[in-house]
């Protein structure tokens, strides 16, 4: 939900490639069954007790609204998602570049690291009105800027940590080969940092969507998901609000999933050794 203040450790690696489909079933089956059970209970209890939609609409009504409102939901997700992705790319890129520069100078590294951690403890989303002031609340850039700032700090911290996480033996090897500085950087430091960078990207993907929505709440575009939710609540369309949140969750999962997929493809060695 929130940036973990310190460096995000590399992926809890997929040690479980060892076992077969049976094992996968053993793992996913309880989860799938739980989901079904919860949905059925939810539906039954809400109907039986007569809980008002303001507290909890039924899953069936949310699903129905979701499909009926696909065009409007798609527009809302597009508006908010665009800001999230733009900010994610800009903030992640800027965080990596700053971290890579900082890794070269000790005073920058040692000065920026604690600041990066401190900024991790700050509710950065609260800067949304400032960016609205700067870039106008009707511009996608004000939302993207909040997202970028939120994504920037975990990436900065993890890049600095990752680039300095090189193994002593590897450093000796490169030295014995009289490897020039840029070869040490590209062939040793950058690959070492990748699991950390992807850790930050995964955290950043989740934070990006959160920041985009919150900055909608602060007064974003009228077509945005956050604004849509607020409007629907004001007009007592609770089921619609739930459907919009569901759409946002799907978008969040998709963004996170793409990052996790990219991580698996680009760092297939995992974090063993």
């Amino acid at each position: 939900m929130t940036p973990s203040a310190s460096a995000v450790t590399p992926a809890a690696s997929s040690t479980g490639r060892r076992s077969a489909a049976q094992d996968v079933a053993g793992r996913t089956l309880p989860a799938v069954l739980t989901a079904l059970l919860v949905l059925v209970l939810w539906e039954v209890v809400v109907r039986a007790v007569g809980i008002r939609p303001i507290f909890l609409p039924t899953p069936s009504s949310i699903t129905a609204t979701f499909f009926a409102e696909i065009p409007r939901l798609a527009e809302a997700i597009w508006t908010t998602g665009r800001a999230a992705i733009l900010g994610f790319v800009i903030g992640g890129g800027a965080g990596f570049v700053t971290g890579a520069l900082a890794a070269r100078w000790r005073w920058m590294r040692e000065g920026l690291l604690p600041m990066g951690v401190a900024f991790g403890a700050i509710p950065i989303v609260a800067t949304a009105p400032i960016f609205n002031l700067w870039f106008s609340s009707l511009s996608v850039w004000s939302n993207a800027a909040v997202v970028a700032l939120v994504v920037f700090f975990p990436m900065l911290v993890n890049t600095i940590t990752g680039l300095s996480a090189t193994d002593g033996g590897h450093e000796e090897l490169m030295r014995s080969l009289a490897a020039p500085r840029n070869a040490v950087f590209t062939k040793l430091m950058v690959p070492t940092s990748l699991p950390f960078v992807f850790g930050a990207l995964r955290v950043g993907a989740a934070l990006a969507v959160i920041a985009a929505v919150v900055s909608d709440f602060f007064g974003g575009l009228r077509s945005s998901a956050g604004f849509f939710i607020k409007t629907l609540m004001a007009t007592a369309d609770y089921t619609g609000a739930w459907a919009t949140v569901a759409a946002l969750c799907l978008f969040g999962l998709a963004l996170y999933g793409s990052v996790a997929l990219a991580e698996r493809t680009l760092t297939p060695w995992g974090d063993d050794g």
Partner: protein
Amino acid sequence: MIPSDGSTASTAQNDAPVGAPSDGGEALVSVRDVTKRFGDGPDAVTALSDVSIDVPAGSFWSLIGPSGCGKSTLLRVMGDLIQPTDGSVTVGGRTAAEARRARDYGMVFQKPTLFNWRTVRRNVELPLEIVGMGKDERRKRAEVMLELVELGDFATKRPGQLSGGMQQRVAIARALSFEPSLLLMDEPFGALDEITRERMNDELLRIWQRLQTTVVFVTHSIPEAVFLSSHIIVMSPRPGRVLAEIDVDLPYPRSEDTRELPRYFELVTEVRETLREAQQL
């Protein structure tokens, strides 16, 4: 093989290291009066004290001694990974730093230190990339080296999929890939079980004889030192210095049978007794 302390010192002072003669041929590596202290003041630890040795080209030398005797430190001073407090090292007439920049050293460490993000073949290619060799050529070369260590079939595997012994063979292939004139090995088989270690020893000797390279090998295993080396330097701890030098007069090529020769056992005993003396000092 090496003159006694007195005569070494007399030749060492001023003359060109390349000329430093020894029975086995030209000295490739000359270590002269090397002292290494870590830290300052009262906390300073003297890791090496006044060490002088000459390793002839094409020979296989081992440094053996208990932990803390400075054998790894000496190897690192030779490889210019550590600067000596006093004294000098020359390799083929160049200073250690020049030799390192000229890529004279192939190093193998106790840990395989492979890059787990690269395939086995790309690990062997690493030094060639740094040297600036073209893509096709280095690929071919890496495949030749992998054949040499009998891992030709594992080129596209990742280090994590290999056993410890296989990983260390990859590290050896990597160290030899760019044909360095000197191979420095720091307890490369220390983490392996006894059987694997012996097999690795056989293989290392086979490779050494084929490539005619010079090896300096750090170990704490007496049988390993005797089996591999043409010459053994026995070191004593605190401060680390050369206690004795033992010529190993077992004929090459050596094999399983060498380990059963009476002379082999005599040499093992000799080294062991020397080391025991070192402990009592």
